[in-house]
């Protein structure tokens, strides 16, 4: 599970100001890895669902992705927040607002 979490470009989110671009870069890398590299990070569309009808991820890769995002950003994703899988845009926004909440 943690394999997806330790990316080469380690950023300490606790001390660094979160910027949307940095979050997006990380999320693209994590999603691409959860897709076993089938789509390169820079080629991922940000407006389609992560699961069926979109990137086609199944529940096994889905749980890897969920865990990787949680570990990476130190946040918790509840089943109330599953809309994040509707698009990468929503996923990025969710992480961004969660980090803002936790830094207050």
């Amino acid at each position: 599970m943690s394999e997806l979490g330790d990316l080469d470009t380690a950023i300490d989110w606790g001390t660094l100001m979160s910027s949307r671009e940095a979050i997006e870069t990380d999320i693209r890398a994590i999603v691409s890895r959860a897709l076993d590299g089938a789509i390169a990070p820079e080629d991922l569309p940000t407006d389609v669902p992560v699961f069926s009808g979109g990137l086609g991820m199944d529940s096994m890769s889905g749980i890897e992705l969920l865990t990787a995002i949680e570990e990476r950003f130190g946040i918790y994703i509840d089943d109330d927040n599953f809309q994040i899988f509707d698009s990468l845009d929503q996923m990025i926004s969710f992480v961004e607002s969660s980090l803002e909440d936790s830094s207050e």
Partner: protein
Amino acid sequence: MAGIKCVIWDLDNTLWDGICLEDPEVQLRPGITDVLAELKERGLVQSIASKNEEKALEFVENFGLMQYFVHPQVNWDPKEDNIKRIVETLNIGLDAVAFVDDNPFERESVQAMLPEVRTYDALDYRKLIELPEFQLNYDTPEARARGRMYVEEAERKRLEEEHEGRREAFLTSLDMVATPWLADEDDLPRISELVTRTNQFNSTGIRYSDEEILEFFRAKEMSFHVCSLEDKHGDYGRCGVSLIRHEPDAWNIEILLLSCRVAGRGLGTAFLSHLGRLAQESGCRWLRAKYIRTERNRQIGLLYKIMGFEKDQNLSNEESSVFVFDLSKGSIECPSWVTLTPRSIGEPS
């Protein structure tokens, strides 16, 4: 206390007396073969974690014991790493693992690194089969076949790794056939077994007693459905269970259980597409699914999300969530790589 699904054995001074690389004449511990055979008969899967040269496996082979073990790990890595490797390949929880070693250092080290694993002194090998956690709680064909199924699963995994191209092409190559049916009395022991043993793909995590299950089975407004799975490598037996509470306009999935051995093959989706179709045919608009999050069952919540269920905020509360699918807007699609062959009532198996 959860039952043991997998026993991991040390070699030197555990299966046999002495150290095989120093003494080529080592002798098996008396009665060890009977213990291994009995555990296999009960459907427990067994493996090896030994700090040794690979040559040690030749001794296992020459003693005729290789048939009892899958994924033997013979190397100089820490035992906890080898145990983790075995557990990941088998897709079971650490709390279902027994580790048998003569060396207290190894047992303590495993205990410290993997506290869920239960460790046993090799001196007690004869007593293992008497312990409650090694008993077969539900004597079903699936339970007794478990060891063989893990071996088949290992073969699938190997092919999957070899398979180039997309996962979907691999899954299609398995020729999976899912057969769901309305459960009858003969299915109750297997239902109880899955209720007791399933962690990751258990929609509520509630361990219902046999009596409660019988009550559900007899309740007029409830029905149990089970689903078996076969592919070209073998038969998984009954590996899906669902309990439906019927309402005039809705089928409510009170329990959804999938054996972790079928994880990632689309059986959950196939089973739900079948239930959705039955609900539709009986004139219901809603397929609802109760979900109680546990530490290990988040896949189930994700599964509902993936299939297009939405969380119903009115029916959800702090303890449990309800996901809902509007059948008037469409059906749940069965994955293209699974053939669904529902069995109707009274049809022989």
